[in-house]
């Protein structure tokens, strides 16, 4: 394991940002720390980088204990949400910074900067100042700067959070390809479940300072450990006291399946190819069901019609523990 976080706790005054967190992040993979804002994921990343210190617990990077190492000695690349560019230096100087303070030979620095700028497609901007770049270009420059010192791990704190939706999508696909190319252990923080599901090899779901679940995107989506993970990764509704996905509910206009819950369609909403039905069951539960338009038309569901609901075969079902907003 590349990064081992062992019983780490961090408080800011009364607020517990991390509560006895233990997690291992695998070598050479792209891992996402996913969770709602204020859940502690950025704090964990900053503690791994040495930019914050844990109140208790240990961190080891590549097998060496890094708990007491200052940020300068951890050999970690860090990319910030708001780029953190050195405004008074050109793009090339920004990328060269880490190498220059390591007093590498000039020719080597020039060659390495050249190679990195090519990697992030900024070669033609080498002599510009960061203020002359777009947000996406600045973030790619920051990435090249972090990679220049050949870090053992690359940490990205909401790297695409400040970019507009289109650039964000482009950049995350590009990050995935870059990672496959460079193969450095990478951890990135995000609150966007789509981003995590699309890019990451492994996802660590963090909420209220605790790790809720660790797994591949498929594991998390198909076998959520609890209600929270399930609701964070997609739409959720409840049926008969369990949480499940709205598209995992079978709907029929006659009580053909055993255990079907009877209810009345209170609202029918068509959004593009899908139909969303709100069903009020006889137990007083409000259930959302999603089905395709063709299916809805075939079984003839309408507002006011009586229907029977059953969980689909193989659906991910989680016992309902608390109210899901």
């Amino acid at each position, binding site marked *: 394991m590349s990064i081992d976080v062992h019983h780490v706790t961090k408080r800011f005054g009364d607020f517990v940002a991390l509560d006895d967190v233990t997690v291992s992040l695998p070598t050479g993979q792209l891992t996402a720390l996913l969770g709602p804002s204020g859940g502690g994921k950025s704090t964990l990343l900053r503690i791994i980088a040495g930019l914050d210190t844990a109140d208790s617990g240990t961190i080891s990077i590549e097998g060496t204990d890094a708990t007491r190492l200052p940020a300068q000695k951890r050999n970690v690349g*860090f990319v910030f949400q708001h780029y953190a560019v050195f405004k008074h230096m050109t793009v090339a100087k920004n990328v060269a910074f880490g190498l220059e303070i390591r007093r590498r030979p000039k020719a080597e620095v020039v060659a390495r900067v050249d190679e990195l700028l090519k990697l992030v497609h900024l070669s033609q901007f080498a002599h510009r100042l960061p203020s002359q770049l777009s947000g996406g270009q600045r973030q790619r420059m920051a990435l090249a700067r972090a990679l220049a010192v050949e870090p053992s791990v690359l940490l990205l704190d909401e790297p695409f959070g400040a970019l507009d939706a289109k650039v964000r999508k482009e950049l995350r696909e590009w990050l995935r390809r870059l990672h496959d190319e460079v193969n450095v252990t990478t951890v990135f923080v995000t609150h966007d479940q789509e981003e995590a599901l699309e890019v990451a090899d492994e996802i660590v779901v963090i909420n209220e300072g605790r790790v809720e679940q660790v797994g591949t995107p498929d594991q998390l989506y198909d076998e959520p450990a609890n209600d929270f993970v399930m609701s964070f990764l997609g739409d959720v509704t409840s049926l008969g006291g369990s949480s499940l996905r709205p598209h995992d509910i079978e709907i029929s206009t006659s009580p053909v399946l055993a255990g079907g819950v009877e209810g009345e369609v209170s609202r029918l909403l068509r959004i593009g190819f899908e139909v969303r039905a709100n069903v009020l069951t006889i137990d007083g539960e409000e259930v959302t069901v999603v089905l395709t338009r063709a299916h809805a038309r075939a079984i003839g569901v309408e507002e006011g019609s009586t229907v029977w609901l059953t969980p689909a075969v193989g659906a991910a079902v989680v016992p309902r523990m608390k109210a899901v907003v």
Partner: protein
Amino acid sequence: MTSALLGPAADFAGEASTGRPPRRRRRQGPRNTLTPGAGLGLGIAMIWFSLLVLIPLVAIIVTAGEGGWSGYFDVLASDQTWAAVQLTVTQSLLVTAVNVVVGTIIAWVLVRDRFWGKSVLNVIIDVPFALPTIVAGLVLLSLYGPQSPLGLEWANTERAVMLALAFVTLPFIVRTVQPVLEELDADVEEAAASLGATRATIVRRIILPSLAPAIAAGAALSFARAISEYGSLVLLSGNLPFRTEVVSVRVLSFIENGNTQSAAALASVMLAVALVVIVGLDIVQRRVANRG
């Protein structure tokens, strides 16, 4: 290494082309981009500037030139005048140098550190600037004059001049550096640290270059104020010819003797000194800012 990334290169072509056009050293296109409103603003600015600054300056140079070059050289050839110019410029440069260091440190303390009484200190910084200069002189005289409660009798010495100048110019660099320091992102310093930079390297290569323009602006203000100072130092310095007489005192005594032409000649010399120093500071500032 980049072969697998040729695909994304195509994706980014679009983004790059919507970015700003490549920078040129000189901007192309029409030189005059004034709209009618902006033209009016520029007009008002120029009239005001001319009335207050340009016309009086020209008047001084014209008055100084009335006696021809010989009048000019006679004024400067006087040992007493030359001593006053030397004293004023040396002490002003010294005080400005002190302010660059101390002012930057005070600004740093006020922005980065938390301590009891910080907000009070923040207000008090402006007192030397807000105080009528003659009152400042009185304060200094009572502290460092004869029967000094501190036991420091600096009246009628060069130290008195420097002390008075340091007192009135203290706020300039603090006040120009403070807002810039507040705007610096903590992110940037953390980024440098994670790249392996020590605290000293971060200060030298990241923080100082960002502060250089503000420090230079404050230094220019501080120097300009120092060479023109009168009120705060007349009481304490004693205005002894060849020892503690500064240029502004010398100019006044020329005028009191009805010798306006000499006063103007000396004034124009100080104008040249001020210009040289301000341009010099700008050059230094550009060097430091680009050092990164």
